[in-house]
């Protein structure tokens, strides 16, 4: 698959603060690539260097075959940017902003469709300053898409969106990807990254600490499975003997088993063999959130 973005050895400092150090990754065409990390990790700095909005101190960046530092104007025409921090003039109306940016983008999208899709039709004549935070955010995403970009950068796109609007945004992003657009997504929402991203880079302290598919990350860093059920058991040693089980414990009549691999199936069959059929047998798998907390040193 064609590489759309390649970053090699990116470094960026602000005075004495090293915001990003030795970051390297590639993004393939049509991929949704996520950047996850705690506040101040260097995500925004990274994506803004890639978009040519900040100049890298060191490293090579190529986006759609262009150098963001020197071929900025052409790059801008071919990418879409929803910036974490930006604004429009307070008194500009929603339709005016969409129309202005559309007429300046060659081969632009039909802006009334975007306005409709991002739920802004009712706010067509409202001024930017009068929009709610979530509405402003949706306008920014719509504006990032007016030029039918080949790659789109979304920096905390769903911040401030209500749960319903967030789901709509997710499905619109999937649609954009179906059309072949590459998406780079910075987010703090683990469920968003798990639901949307093909691959995720975990960034911490200006470095990429790991990069894989969400499932790959979970398997590697938080592959633990927890199985729980209620039963009156005195002896748990036979449960601990099951392949893959690492630990079995009891809290009242709640039995908790932790392990790796197909633990649920093995535990279930062992229970049935002994004539125990708990009705509340359930499994809890690790999520990206556990990976995040493990890798970025949060509470484990």
């Amino acid at each position, binding site marked *: 698959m064609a590489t759309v973005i390649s970053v090699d050895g990116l470094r960026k400092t*602000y005075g004495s603060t090293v915001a990003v150090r030795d970051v390297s990754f590639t993004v393939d065409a049509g991929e949704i690539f996520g950047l996850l990390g705690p506040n101040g990790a260097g995500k925004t700095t990274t994506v*803004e260097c890639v*978009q040519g*909005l*900040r*100049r890298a101190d060191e490293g090579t960046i190529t986006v759609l075959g262009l150098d963001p530092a020197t071929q900025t*104007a052409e790059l*801008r*025409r071919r990418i879409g*940017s929803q*910036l974490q*921090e*930006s*604004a*429009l*003039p307070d*008194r*500009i109306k929603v339709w*005016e902003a969409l129309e*202005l*940016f559309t*007429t*300046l*983008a060659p081969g632009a999208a039909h802006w009334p469709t975007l306005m409709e899709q991002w739920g802004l039709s009712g706010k067509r004549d409202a*001024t930017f300053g009068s929009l709610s935070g979530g509405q402003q955010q949706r306008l*920014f995403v719509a*504006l990032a898409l*007016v*030029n039918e970009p080949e790659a789109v950068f979304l920096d905390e796109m769903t911040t401030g969106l209500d749960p319903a609007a967030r789901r709509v945004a997710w499905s619109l992003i999937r649609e954009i990807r179906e059309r072949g657009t590459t998406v780079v997504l910075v987010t703090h929402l683990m469920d968003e990254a798990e639901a949307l991203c093909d691959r995720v880079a975990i960034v911490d302290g200006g470095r990429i600490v790991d990069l894989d598919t969400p499932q790959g990350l979970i398997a590697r860093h938080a592959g633990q499975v927890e199985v729980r059920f209620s039963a009156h058991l005195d002896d748990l040693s036979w449960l601990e003997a099951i392949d893959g089980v690492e630990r079995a414990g009891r809290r009242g009549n709640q039995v908790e088993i932790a392990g790796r691999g197909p633990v649920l199936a093995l535990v279930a069959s062992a229970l049935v063999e002994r004539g125990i059929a708990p009705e509340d047998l359930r499994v809890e798998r690790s999520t990206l959130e556990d990976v995040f907390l493990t890798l970025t040193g949060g509470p484990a």
Partner: protein
Amino acid sequence: MRALARTTWVELKLFRREPLTVAVTLGLPLVLLFVLGGVFGNTPDPEVYRGVGPMDYYVPAYIGLVIASLGIVGLPAHLSAYRERGVLRRFVASSVPMWAVIGAQVMVTLVVAFLGSVLLITVASVTYDIHFPSSVPLVVGGFFLSGLSFSAIGVFLGSAFPTARAAQGAGLMLWFVMMILGGAGPPPEVLTEGMRAVGDATPVRHVILLLQDAWLGFGWNWTETLIVAVFMAGAVLVTILLTRGRLGRER
């Protein structure tokens, strides 16, 4: 060019939606004109006002003042607020060229200054018996040169200061100095030598002389043209050096 036309059109609409700014920009020179007209009338006195009637002196001077207000108060406040709030980033990231954003500010300055001047002339000619310009083309030429020069100074102020507040403060301070000592306040003939020297150092002094000469029939003043052009070139140069063409982007 299309980018400039579109952004200018939008900026003009935005300006119209700021009733307070419109009122102050267009109304303040009128108020000053009435006060001074009420005090001095329009009878020529050979000792002051370059020997012409006070109102004949003040009308072209106020055209200069309108241009100066828009250039050093309005434009920097607008531009630095855009920069501070991230509007410039938004525009630049959306392929609106930086030169079009700045160009639109300049166009708005020129258009509004033009409307303000027309209003001023109309009101002055209705209420006082002012002389009309000896040469309309020269006045228009002086107007555009002055407008461009003050726009350049405004762009400099708007990009040089770290915050919008600082840019606004500096702009207002300059405006008061220019207003009082630059020839739009008391007649320069009554100022002390020191005050006159300060006034002569302000660009508005030269814009006013350029406009007055064209208006009052003293012809096109090449010395003032040169000075106004030097202010413009200097402002452009310093702005380019200062921002290294990276206004709206981070270092």
